[in-house]
């Protein structure tokens, strides 16, 4: 969808214009306020890079049936999110929580792999 890439590119260019205007205003103080223009310039560059990626990949529109191959329920996604949350909180609240979080995260990842294998099986069956 190359037109979508144009939206990202135009938006990134617009941020780029304002980064340039900011540099004009900064003049002598610009080394001390690096963070100020780096953040905006960085966002502009990231938007332009995203546009380039979308343009290059030329993302194709998925057929409507593709969505229907996704499992209707995904407990694994929920478990993974909870596991990652526990891991994060465990960073301050002790090894026990880190270990619980790691266990839950592994369980979630395992579930996702299982779901993905089931989806592929379903896709193969549909193809044949």
């Amino acid at each position: 969808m190359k037109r979508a890439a144009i939206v990202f590119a135009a938006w990134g260019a617009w941020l780029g214009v304002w980064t340039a205007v900011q540099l004009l205003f900064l003049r002598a103080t610009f080394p001390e306020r690096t963070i100020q223009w780096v953040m905006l310039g960085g966002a502009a560059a990231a938007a332009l890079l995203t546009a380039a990626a979308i343009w290059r990949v030329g993302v194709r529109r998925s057929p409507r049936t593709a969505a229907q191959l996704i499992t209707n329920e995904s407990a694994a996604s929920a478990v993974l999110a909870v596991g990652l949350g526990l891991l994060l909180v465990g960073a301050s609240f002790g090894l026990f929580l880190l270990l619980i979080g790691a266990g839950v995260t592994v369980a979630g990842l395992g579930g996702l792999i299982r779901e993905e294998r089931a989806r592929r099986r379903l896709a193969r069956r549909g193809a044949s």
Partner: protein
Amino acid sequence: MSAVAPALREVPVRGLTSTDHKRIALNLGVVAFAFFIAGGLLALVMRSQLAADGGVVSEAVYNQLFTMHGSTMVYLFVVPVALAAGLYLVPLQVGAADVAAPRLALAGLWLLVCGGITMWCGFLTSGGAAQASWWGFDPLSDLPHSPGSGIDLWLYGVVMATVAEMLWAGCIVATVVRRRAPGMTLLRMPVFSWTMVVTCLMVLFAFPALLVALGLLWAQRHVGGVLVGNSGAVAYQQLFWFYGHPVVYVMFFPFMGMAAEVVATFSRRRFFGYPAFVVALLAFSGLSMTVWGHHMFTFGQVTNKYFSLTSTALVVPAGIEYFDFLGTIWRGALRFTTPFLFALAFLAQFLVGGLTGVILASPPLDYGLNMSYFVVAHFHYTIFAGSAFALFAGVYYWFPKITGVMLRERLGKVHFALMLIGTNLTFFPMFILGAEGMTRRIAVYPRGSGWRPLNELETVGAFVIALATAVFLFNVAVSLRRRQPAGDDPWEAHTLEWATTSPPPRFNFTALPPIRSHAPLLDLREHAAARVATQEAPA
């Protein structure tokens, strides 16, 4: 009997792990609304404290209350509910069968739940919840000034909520890029979907700055030597506000999109100036990434002239958008339904918030008003009097689509009237108090200041808002219990979501109408009317 609200009657556990974008969005909306109630209760305690001029809670508890009120409303209610609306409606509006990457969206829902619980667990710690405001500014939030674990829990909660929000934004943008129906070009996307696109651009390119800021804050608290001295504090503020101002527009654009759909439908007119509106949205969102420094005018550490220029320049795209709204209403065949009344109030009240923002965009004026209740009034007029009113417009408008039943119109108008009165009673006096010098975040104000009567008035207003919210919840309960079936398109609306059943099936559509503009259903009706007119005309 209609097949009413099966989405709301599913087996609870299965519903919580569903990958259906509508179910995820509905769950997210319910979670976010629960946090709205919780954050609102904190506000009522704060208002009681200020009406009594102290004595209700200690100053330390008051600090926790305003921190958790702001954090809950921003991180756990307004942004999530805005993105929930996008998750529900964008796939329907662009004619997609599902959202892109629904498992990521589901993971985001659970991250938000974990984040919210984590943040609120701060109240259970010995030192209480975080006290460093929703900004968590360093050095207020570093170890010597915030020694408890409440601030750590706040930090983790915010990280989880922010990651969740980025996941949803990615899903919505990917849906627009990949999943649009044949014929749905970018310039045929409904206004609401466009507002979601620009919202998601801001989420994806501004929110990472918050994660960096919080990462540095975590390192400062647990390792030290990261945010050192004045430069460290300023660096944190730069990073925070690079997120913190775009987030204001993340809390505005989706709701403006909701109001735009409501206004067009109930004016029985095509949305006026659609191409200009889209260009203005893109310009507005880009410009809103460049204004963060106006929060730091008084610091002497940002380029005030530049940020004043960009902040003032926002009135140009905003003016175009207001002009489009007025152009749509002008000579429309208006229907004064509850959603339309909320949308009109959004337009009027957001204007107050927007125009007072222009005052704050001027550094000399900001020097006088910064950190006063004037600022509190300004952002509550934008976020509550503005966005929350548009949200309710959207809720009343799309409730029939989501559940298959109509909300009660008379109760809706009572809700609207109470909200209007309560909101203006609560927030307008803050302008006066701010101009008189009442600073924000104070638990007690000077005895002889004469500020008590206005504070009492604000507190009455806050309780009227609470009453209005109770009326809304009662309306929802009554409407779901004594059902008035809505049909597929009760409002004669314009966009694709009204072409499917209410509520929509798992994969949204069985067939799509031809898409020739951003209002395909209006096209169909106009086409049918033209055909009838041609047939009735004498040969």
